[in-house]
């Protein structure tokens, strides 16, 4: 089958540069400012961009979620702020050490490393990881750097399989030559280099079982595709990897999830970022990603009615509704990037039919069906949703 334009590799648009000295310089600048304030008898503070829905907007032009300019000022001399002020400085000092020693730490390690009893009190610097995580998020927003750039790694999840050669430190390997297992994506991908890229596009797959199915059916080889298994919601590492593959290597990104509000949310996050991480859209989101399925149209087109499942919750027109799945779908209908005919139609259909359809339900036709018919047909005909 001839390939459609949708899946042809494009020219690279950006080149990744990771400069640890930038982070170090910024940390020092903040420290010096605090010190100057206190010396002249001024109450020292940090200005931190506010988090949450109240401080994000959709950049129509670049089509990503962005952070607004609302600031919250965190003072030293304020009973409600003092503890957080101290915690912010503790984490900043810790990050400085990590980056200068070229070490990486998990969020939990960062918590434990900075937790200790404050001398002369029974109070700990951090009582709970729920105290340190938000401080790290604050620093990301405040300094405009990814936590990975501060050498704080997120939980890792996901793996890839396909004919690309990656350099990671001294190692070089082809991710299609690692057996069925594929290559596990680490928490931080900043340091990876793409040595060879012999695929036409990347297919991002929600479930490991479906990714394994495609590998077993030799789909990556036959279709010249890189399989990226997210294993649920895409981790930051995977999203950053997708972003880099798209912008640095020009790979078209095609997303393949379950046909349900959760699957569409996964797509939405890969494409546009999440509200929580709006400040990272520039580095984590890939607005040009496209969606291959599952769609509501697939149900009729491929005769899958038998293997749909009921949506959970109460529909909007019933008493007490909408709840659960129905509520999520209605929320998704409001997303700026779903403001187009195609998506509105899908989402409305889902509510009307009251069902969801899983990727693996395609196995009802036959095991090969997804790899031999469903995906090639839709992708090569460019039957993709925006």
């Amino acid at each position, binding site marked *: 089958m001839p390939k459609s334009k949708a899946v042809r590799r494009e020219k690279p648009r950006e080149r990744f540069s990771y400069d640890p000295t930038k982070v170090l310089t910024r*940390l020092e600048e903040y420290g010096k400012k605090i010190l100057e304030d206190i010396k002249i008898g001024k109450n020292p503070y940090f200005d931190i961009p506010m988090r949450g829905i109240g401080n994000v907007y959709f950049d129509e032009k670049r089509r990503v979620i962005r952070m607004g300019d609302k600031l919250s*000022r965190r003072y*030293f*001399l304020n*009973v409600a702020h003092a503890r957080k002020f101290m915690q912010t*400085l*503790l984490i900043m000092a810790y990050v400085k050490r990590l980056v200068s020693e070229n070490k990486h730490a998990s969020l939990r390690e960062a918590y434990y490393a900075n937790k200790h009893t*404050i001398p002369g009190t029974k109070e700990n*610097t951090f009582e709970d990881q729920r105290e340190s995580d938000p401080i790290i998020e604050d620093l990301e927003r405040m300094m405009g750097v990814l936590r990975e750039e501060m050498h704080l790694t997120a939980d890792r999840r996901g793996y890839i399989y396909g004919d690309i050669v990656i350099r990671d430190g001294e190692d070089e390997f082809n991710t299609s030559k690692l057996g069925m297992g594929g290559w596990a994506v680490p928490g931080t991908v900043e340091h990876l280099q793409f040595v060879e890229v012999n695929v036409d596009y990347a297919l991002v797959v929600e479930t490991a079982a479906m990714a394994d199915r495609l590998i077993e059916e030799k789909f990556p080889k036959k279709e010249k595709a890189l399989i990226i298994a997210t294993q649920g919601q895409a981790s930051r590492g995977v999203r950053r990897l997708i972003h880099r593959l798209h912008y640095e290597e020009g790979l078209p990104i095609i997303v393949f999830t379950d046909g349900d509000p959760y699957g569409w949310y996964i797509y939405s996050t890969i494409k546009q970022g999440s509200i929580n991480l709006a400040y990272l859209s520039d580095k984590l989101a890939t607005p040009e990603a496209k969606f291959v399925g599952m769609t509501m149209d697939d149900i009729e087109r491929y005769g899958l009615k038998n293997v749909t499942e009921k949506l959970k919750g109460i529909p909007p027109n019933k008493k007490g509704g909408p709840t659960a799945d129905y509520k999520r779908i209605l929320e998704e209908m409001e997303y700026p990037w779903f403001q187009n005919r195609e998506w509105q139609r899908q989402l409305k259909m889902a509510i009307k039919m009251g069902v969801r359809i899983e990727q693996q339900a395609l196995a009802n036709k036959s095991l090969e069906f997804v790899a031999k018919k469903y995906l090639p047909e839709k992708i090569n005909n460019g039957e993709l949703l925006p």
Partner: protein
Amino acid sequence: MAEANQLFKEFKIQSVSEFFRRNAAMLGYTGKIRSLTTVIHEAVTNSLDACEEAGILPYVRVEIEELGREHYKVIIEDNGPGIPEKYITHVFGKMLAGTKAHRNIQSRGQQGIGISGAVMFAQITSGKATRVITSTGDDRIIEAWVKIDVDRNEGKIVKKEKHPNPKGWRGTRIELEVKNVRYVRSKQGIYWYLKLTAIANPHAHIELIEPDGKLIVFPRSSEDVPEPPVEMKPHPRGVLTDDVYRMAKKTRRSSIKRFLVGEFSRISDKKIDELIEYIAALRLIKTEKDKNVQEQLYERLMKGEVKAVLRSFKGYTKVVKQVAKLMEKPPEKLSWHEAEEIVEAFKYMKFLAPPTHGLRPIGEENIEKGLTNILKPEFVTAVTRSPKVYSGGIPFQVEVGLAYGGEIPGGFELLRYANRVPLLFDAGSCVTTLAARSVDWRRYKVDDLDRAPLVLMINVISVHVPYTGTGKQSIANVEEIQNEIRLAIMDAARKLQTYLSGKHRRLHQAKRRRTFEKYVPEIAKALSVLTGEPEEDVRNYFLSYIEGHFAAKETGGAEEVSENA
């Protein structure tokens, strides 16, 4: 088929006492613990009422002797005015006899059943007569054993002795022997009942000797005998047709007008003129055929436009004259229908609120004394609201006391009273409970009500307390009453809040400063890492900044502005 006459052969008349013997639960004799409490309640109430009426500072002593399993002797002695010999059988032996039941007066007790009910309860459980020793302070002490002749509802003195009274003792001591009851120190038992009574009656000295011989004293903390409540004339808005009708039959006044002016509160001669107009207007409105017009006229009447309404009818003066004539009739000639007309007119008229001089609150000072004396709290306050009216014409008054800390253990406690009498049962549905729970205590620095060392007492005073049931242990949720209770609680709680704030202010300032200081070493270490400045220096910058800030505050006194970004 049996003949009617035959059937009625068995027709007999039962006495009141017989009725209550069979229905003792109606009088509070239900359950082994509650029955004993009821006996004590009746006797103590009698003592306190009698002392109050006589202006005596009461001394009441309750003694419980255990005679066997669920078998007790109960002794209640007071220093009251004593009972004249000829009234002994009436007071203790005849039900529905008393000095207050038939009057419109605030009263602690049941309506003339109380103590004779206790005598009957003793009699049917133990078979024993009640021993009464009393003297009015004259030269004789009467000792009498009283029983109730249940079939005749009459007191019967089984045995009587007279003793000389050389020391001029005055008072009454009664001894009842009861079975099928149990003494327990629970919240529905006697100890608790007397404790609550003592709190609400700081002018009374109350003692209790428990079955094991333990003496408990609730000492007097006020030397003022409360004024006895006085009878209040009924308010026009608080009466039913039946009341007016029956009062009219009994009065000795010469005319209906004089009867109304004389026996109701807030009715003056001028009000009678108004009443005449309203009755006339109502008569005329009833002749109107068009329902809509009629409805409008009623509304206008409600707004007080009585003269305008009258004038809208032709020949209205004739009707007014008829009504005026009615007012001159002898009251015993008042017909039910006319009484209905009067009561209906009352509903449209405006009256001053009912007089409240008959209500006898405990008073803020005395509540504080009572709570302090019995509970030994760290802080106490009380609020007595001014009297209000519910259901249009029934006066009532609310007071609350609030005690905090000191010897009060943790756990919120609500003490409920109606006319100073403790309510021990059915707390859940009581308006006092609802009101207390509806207050947002956290607003008053009481963060966890259920653990706070807090006692709240609520006393609802009225000639007619709206109880929820025949047990008279729970006050109905009347909106006006709930509002008054809430206002009183909030007022008292505000005082508590002020106290709690004051107590902590100094502590608070030191704690604040410490809050900032304790973080300085951590901050210094971190800033030193970030900037390379020596840790010691950074620490000093911060400490002297804090020092300066709090020094400025001591002198300036204002809150730092800079904190509120």
